[in-house]
């Protein structure tokens, strides 16, 4: 009897509760005049700790533990459902989908189930209204340029991969960060700085009406340093560096942190002294990480599957399948199954995407030919199947996104050879100098039709390279800009050392962790424009306790 009572008191696992609530809801929804053809429930549980230290002391310590619910509801048929993009006035309809918190304790069974039922109900009623508009939209508007089904029906995936807690000595890290932050702040020319560590465990539970049942997740740690200052010309200059790893034992030790802090400050001071660059067009080398971000912005976003079917998208590469878009020595693929590459952990690693598809490699460019797109479960003509790139941040509907975008070259050059190519091209074009970009700070691109179909890569460290024997000259205040087809047409050679950029990418489905891995690449011509500049004078008084000069 006692044993029975104990068993009764034990909470059902979250995934069982999701399954049973989905089943219960479907019994009702199946009887509706417009039943859903698909419902997916995802609970994203985040346990994260964020530490920030400034000026030798702990600045913030945030412990976050939350569970967020996503209900992906599709009313209609897989061919045409409520998620279909609307055109015209109908596209202005309000969407209430947002962050839905769930209780953290599985034993609070009623609270959990009632919140699930409420969210399923709300998403259903919204989708049932939506599909009416979708159908009318189809009747009234012209045929779409790239008609395709709205959803790929798949065999359900099942799996349970335990996700361990992060074993981090955060108390010890507080001290490490405090000391590193003191190091960052020591120079009076540094106006603001911090050292940070974030540890994030994400556990995902997923069930759907096809029978999928998945438990998986990721662990991530990021240690970062940031310093900033204001130049005499008002330029807000900052240097930000981060290291992303999956396990605590890969984090840098204190000595490495201190050395890293010194290097970061040195970079800032060099930039403070550096002149601002000028608008430029000419030969350019993008070193590995910069090249990775370049491919992410210029190619990666343009091969996201859903962008090939929306009529408001630029569709730069939609009709290029089987055609040359890059030199024949370049391959590009996206492989979220890669946990590491080039000796570094990759941010874009995952086991299953947000639509319950097991992670797999997606080939994009083979020998310079476009061979595929990043696909979620939204088919496009000629590409009917997901390749596990349907991704989202909790609270958003998934769309196709990058994971680990990898650029490989079958013909490579050493860094010295690339530089020689650069110098030769400077001479051939008769320009004063070429540019080598070492560090970038992210970027963005516009893939639609209203805005220019252009990209911008924020350049943090760029060097002017002269052919007359002058040493390379660091410049600031310029960003790489351009349009994709012209830029790719000017790619001449690639280096032999891939480097990893780890970051977070924001798009329609929120922020997702990504990586871009690429060797250095040489372009015969790229363009730079002036970076936006601050207008504030440097502080009127010196930093307290200093005379404002160099330490």
């Amino acid at each position, binding site marked *: 009897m006692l044993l029975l009572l104990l068993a009764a008191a034990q909470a059902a696992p979250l995934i069982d509760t999701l399954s049973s609530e989905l089943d219960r809801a479907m019994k009702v929804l199946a009887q509706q005049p417009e039943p859903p053809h698909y419902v997916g429930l995802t609970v994203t549980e985040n346990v994260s700790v964020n530490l920030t230290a400034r*000026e030798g002391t702990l600045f913030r310590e945030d*412990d976050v533990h*939350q569970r967020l619910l996503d209900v992906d509801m599709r009313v209609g048929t897989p061919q045409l459902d409520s998620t279909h993009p609307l055109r015209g006035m109908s596209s202005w309809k309000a969407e209430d989908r947002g962050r839905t918190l769930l209780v953290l304790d599985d034993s609070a069974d009623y609270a959990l189930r*009632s*919140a699930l039922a409420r969210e399923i*109900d709300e998403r259903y009623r919204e989708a049932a209204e939506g599909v009416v508009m979708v159908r009318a939209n189809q009747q009234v508007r012209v045929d779409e340029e790239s008609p395709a089904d709205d959803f790929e029906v798949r065999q359900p995936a099942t799996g349970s991969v335990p996700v361990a807690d992060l074993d981090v000595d955060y108390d010890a890290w507080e001290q490490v960060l405090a000391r590193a932050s003191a190091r960052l*702040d020591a120079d009076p020319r540094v106006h603001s700085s911090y050292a940070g560590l974030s540890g994030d465990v994400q556990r995902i539970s997923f069930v759907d009406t096809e029978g999928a049942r998945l438990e998986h997740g990721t662990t991530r740690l990021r240690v970062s340093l940031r310093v900033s200052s204001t130049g005499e010309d008002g330029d807000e200059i900052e240097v930000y560096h981060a290291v992303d790893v999956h396990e605590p034992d890969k984090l840098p030790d204190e000595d490495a942190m201190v050395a890293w802090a010194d290097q970061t400050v040195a970079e800032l001071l060099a930039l403070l002294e550096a002149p601002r660059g000028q608008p430029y067009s000419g030969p350019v080398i993008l070193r590995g990480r910069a090249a990775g971000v370049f491919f992410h912005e210029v190619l990666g976003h343009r091969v996201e599957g859903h962008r090939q079917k929306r009529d408001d998208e630029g569709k730069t590469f939609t009709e290029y399948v089987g055609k040359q878009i890059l030199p024949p020595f370049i391959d590009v693929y996206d492989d979220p199954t890669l946990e590491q590459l080039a000796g570094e952990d990759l941010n874009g690693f995952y086991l299953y995407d947000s639509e319950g598809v097991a992670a797999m490699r997606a080939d994009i460019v083979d020998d310079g030919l476009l061979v595929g797109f990043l696909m979620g479960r939204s088919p496009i003509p000629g590409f009917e199947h997901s390749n596990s790139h349907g991704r989202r941040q909790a609270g958003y509907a998934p769309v196709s996104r990058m994971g680990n975008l990898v650029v490989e070259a079958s013909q490579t050059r050493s860094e010295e050879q690339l530089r020689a190519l650069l110098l030769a091209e400077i001479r051939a074009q008769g320009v004063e100098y070429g540019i080598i970009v070492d560090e970038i700070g992210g970027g963005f691109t516009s893939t639609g039709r209203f805005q220019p179909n252009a990209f911008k890569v924020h350049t943090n460290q760029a060097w002017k390279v002269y052919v007359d024997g002058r040493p390379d000259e660091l410049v600031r205040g310029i960003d790489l800009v351009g349009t994709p087809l012209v830029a790719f047409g000017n790619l001449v050679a690639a280096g032999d050392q891939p480097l990893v950029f780890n970051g977070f990418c924001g798009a329609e489905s929120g922020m997702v962790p990504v990586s871009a891995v690429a060797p250095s690449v040489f372009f015969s011509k790229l363009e730079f424009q002036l970076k936006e500049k601050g207008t504030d004078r440097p502080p*009127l*008084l010196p930093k307290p306790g200093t005379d404002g000069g160099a330490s």
Partner: protein
Amino acid sequence: MIALLLTLPALAALSDDPLVAALIEQLERNQEQLHIDDAPPLYHLRYHLLLMDSVEVGASQGGLLYASHSPFNGLGVEVRVGAPELDSTGFGGWEDGMGFVSLPVEPTPLTVRNEAWRLTDRAYKEAVEQYARKAATWEPPPDHPGDFQLLAPTTAQLGTAHGGDFEALKQLAVDLSAAFPRDPALEVGQVFMGHEAGSQVIVDTEGTRVQRPRSETSIRAVAHVRTASGLLLTDQLLWSVLDPSDLPPASEMEGAIAAMATGLLAIACQPELTEEYVGPVIFEDDAAIQLFREMLVPQLEGTPPVVPFDTWIGELGGDLGEGAGGAEARLGRRVLPPGWSVVDDPRMDPHHPATFEVDAEGTPTQAVDLVEDGIVRQVLMSRVPRKGTSGTNGHARGQLGRRLPGRASELEVRPDAHTGHRKLRKQAAQLARAYGRDYVYLVRRLQDPAVFGVGGGNGVVNLEDVALPPPVYLVRVYADGREEIVHGGSFSGVHRWVLRDIVAAGEEVSGTYLAPSTPGGTSWDPLRGIPTLLRAPEVLVGELEIVPTPADPKDIRVVPAPQASP
């Protein structure tokens, strides 16, 4: 001029605090050295050093949604350039010489110095430009009362409040949330708890050196119920106390939550209001507090609105601007029936979270006789002058790093005479006869906009006219004493003059609410706001209009809530 030395012996200790000493060092440095050629002088600089322990918890029907416990430390600055007669403040736009930044969870003198340096540099530059914008585009009227009141310094060390037990508070929120009944019609049954305790240090260039305690523990229980026709009804309970030990016993709060939710479920089962009613309305219990809170208090907060800055995106500031305030103040006008009076005294209840000895600008507070014989004689003031007033009365409250307006704290509305429930109803019935009715409406509680957004924001009800939110508890009271509860009514066309139409006052009731941080605004968050105590009588209003709230059948749930486990 106000000069106060509250605790001289303790003053040395405040200055000895290394963080305060670092702040004063920066105050003096900036006062002496911060300068731009040909710019108007910096004549007033004030810092607010906030050192708090902060807890936030959310719980739903017996389960924890989130919990956080961390220090909340910050530094606020107010820079004024020009002269008290005309300075850089009180003009629209956000670059106004004021600001607030977070301080480390473990602040050091170095971090205080550096943050003060960064913050003040920015604020000073903003103030210089703001002064130029204001002087270039606005001509003060001849009777402009000035922009700031210089005062003799205040020195006071009133101590600090100590934080509560995080685990105990978390468990309390979860336990309270378990008190909601497990009823399928209850869409939301959540409890939110906010707790903060610590101190605020105020130092300025006039020599003010004040440390005052700050503490508040607020618990808001929120229920949303869906009616059969699709209407969403909301109700809530708020406990706001100085210290967690001042909370009622958990069992008492659990009982109140269960009763509130059960009551709301019962209301949802009652008939919907179908008629348009014009006639007398009785405001009982919390409804009386909400009536005065919404319709009276804005008329008593006197800080004038900021002068609008005409920009290409429209006017910034004016009646709707950040920290505007005072737009509705009715100095010298009748706001209540003859014989009524209103007083605000932040020391009326020294155990209430609205209490203070010294206001947020460091001014010793005073009791203020706001209304006499129904007419506004004084208004609540900070150090921002208003024509027709004699300056601050120590009621500056609000968000640090913003312009601090005069706000209500502990307010008492006193009628000329009280009458009992029975007589109030009898009088109402007599009035109703003039409208050809044998019944009146009685309201016991109004919905609170602060909880409309809970549970995904689906509680937003009838917000076209939030002058007075819709009733929760609306009762049709017949002349023979019968009562019929109805739901789905909203007030229509309510104007502040409704208070002049009060016919009779009943028994005194008391309530606490969290006022929006911006005067005249609306708080949409269950925990954000300034605790305010209001004592007022239940009242009979001669005429009000109540109309049906239309239900949308599209809001009727398709997927039913789960049944509770046995």
